[in-house]
């Protein structure tokens, strides 16, 4: 049985890669994919702790996180499509006004 700690370290590395993507990229879609990466890293932590403490609550939280991530992806990508129609760009530096 692989120690829980190693899964936590893998999850920490993936989360940091996601943070790096959000901080350094300007393409909106890539930033969104980095957020999905962070959500998945947190899911891995939830499942690792669920096995460690023999609790099913962590797995059910992961189920809800997946549903919410799907909703978030749908609305976020709709926002980017709308922004592309208005600005012809999905560079997040171009979206510096609340109203356009």
């Amino acid at each position, binding site marked *: *049985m*692989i*120690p*829980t*700690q*190693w*899964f*936590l*370290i*893998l999850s*920490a*590395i*993936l989360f*940091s*890669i996601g*943070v*790096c*993507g959000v*901080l*350094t990229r*300007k*393409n909106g*879609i*890539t930033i969104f*994919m*980095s957020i*999905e*990466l962070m959500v*998945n890293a947190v*899911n*891995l932590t939830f*499942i690792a702790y*669920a*096995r*460690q403490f*023999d609790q*099913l*609550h962590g*797995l*059910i939280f*992961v*189920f*809800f996180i*997946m*549903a919410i*991530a*799907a*909703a*978030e*992806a*749908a609305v976020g*990508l*709709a*926002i*980017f*499509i*709308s922004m*592309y129609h208005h600005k012809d760009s*999905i560079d997040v*530096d171009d979206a510096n006004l609340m109203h356009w």
Partner: protein
Amino acid sequence: MFEYLIFFFFAAVAVIFALVVILHRNPVVGALSLVVSFFALAVMYVLLDAPFMAALQIIVYSGAIMVLFLFVIMLLNLQHEKEPSTRPVQQWLGYLTSSAFAISLVYYLGKYAVMSGALPVPFIADARAIGRRMFEAYIFPFEAVSILLLAAIVGALMLTGRSEQRENTSGEVIR
């Protein structure tokens, strides 16, 4: 041990393809790499005795969400998008901050998150156990999530609706 070999191979796959997602200029390559990374995470879930969650990961993430991403990238024709390299100082600060965050997180997890190994009883996390728990204790959040998904559908339709159509129905320009 065979289990450790699988763990390290798929951990390396997950990390390398996650790096491709944030470093590659082409968003299509990034999206496909993210699919590979999610598959590697599904293998991790199998190693953690949660095969139902692995199936959900592949169906929901690799299947539904990433297809949505790919469709939007191809709809907006972003394959040849070139990012202008503005603000180099902030970019390097971002790399520096996130790598410092990663190093400190890994260091403290390695130092303090040492947990006992084997469980006294096998961890049962199949669809039957999860469904039983979900429809007993978590029935209200389950229904709330269904309403949230409905709200997301309506919101996405409203955001992507063209302004010409709204102009026709209401008689004035709404932007």
